[in-house]
């Protein structure tokens, strides 16, 4: 078995990204869809870190991008959960199929 390199980590992040895509497409519950989005964002973070570590170790930009993505993901999760709680008050359900007020 050879040394762990960039390709190994890219394979992990690719697999995690498409696991997130699968979850986003199959789930109908808003909180679980949010979890799938968190998985996708994390796979992007792994990519940034891996490229910084193995290709551009003379810079720190990959780490900064990861830090800012984590901050924005936290803000996004908080807003999404506020919206979900508000939706639950109005519809008594967090299923995406039930929120059809704006459906044409």
């Amino acid at each position, binding site marked *: *078995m050879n*040394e*762990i390199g960039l*390709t*190994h980590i*890219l*394979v*992990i992040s690719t697999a*995690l*990204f*498409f*696991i*997130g*895509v*699968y*979850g986003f*497409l*199959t*789930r109908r*519950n808003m*909180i*679980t869809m949010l*979890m*799938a989005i*968190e*998985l996708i964002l*994390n796979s992007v*973070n*792994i990519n940034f*870190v*891996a490229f*910084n*570590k*193995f*290709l*551009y*170790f*003379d810079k*720190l*930009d990959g*780490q*900064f991008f990861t*830090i*800012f993505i*984590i*901050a*924005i*993901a*936290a*803000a996004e999760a*908080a*807003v999404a*959960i*506020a919206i*979900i*709680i*508000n939706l*639950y*008050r109005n519809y008594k359900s*967090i299923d995406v199929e039930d929120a059809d007020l704006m459906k044409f």
Partner: protein
Amino acid sequence: MSASTVIFYILAAVILGGGLLAVTARKIFRAAVFLLFSLIGIAGLYFYLNYEFLGAVQIVVYVGGIVVLIIFSIFLTAESGSDMKKPALAKVIFSGLSAAFGCALTLWLIKGQTFLPTLDPAVAPSIKNIGLQMLSTTQHGYILPFEVVSILLLSAMIGCIVIAIKVKK
């Protein structure tokens, strides 16, 4: 097979297994706990790559913040004990196929790619270097995104309060 390789494969199994169970578990609370395992595995991967600061941030923000928030919202909205509805079989098949094809295409592209590392000397990813560059106002400094993201966090906080507040009728 060295110990480092074994640790890497254990981390990979935790990340991918946790992620896979998080998107397929039938009970929503279990899905949140599996997501927790996956995120802890990712923090372990950052520690494995010697990025201690990022690993600490990942644990503090994701494990200590986002997953706890998700679990709170599960208790506020869903029936955490009961099973969720099974997705339709056709939807599972087509979503799985599209994810598998996308994954195969990306892996094929990665396999054909040759990556050339830079020849410049490495910079230590220490907390001192990160802090100095993040708050520097010179070229390659990140002070402007830092301030913008602080405004974003403030507006997200106010927005959450406004959206989730109970209006008296």
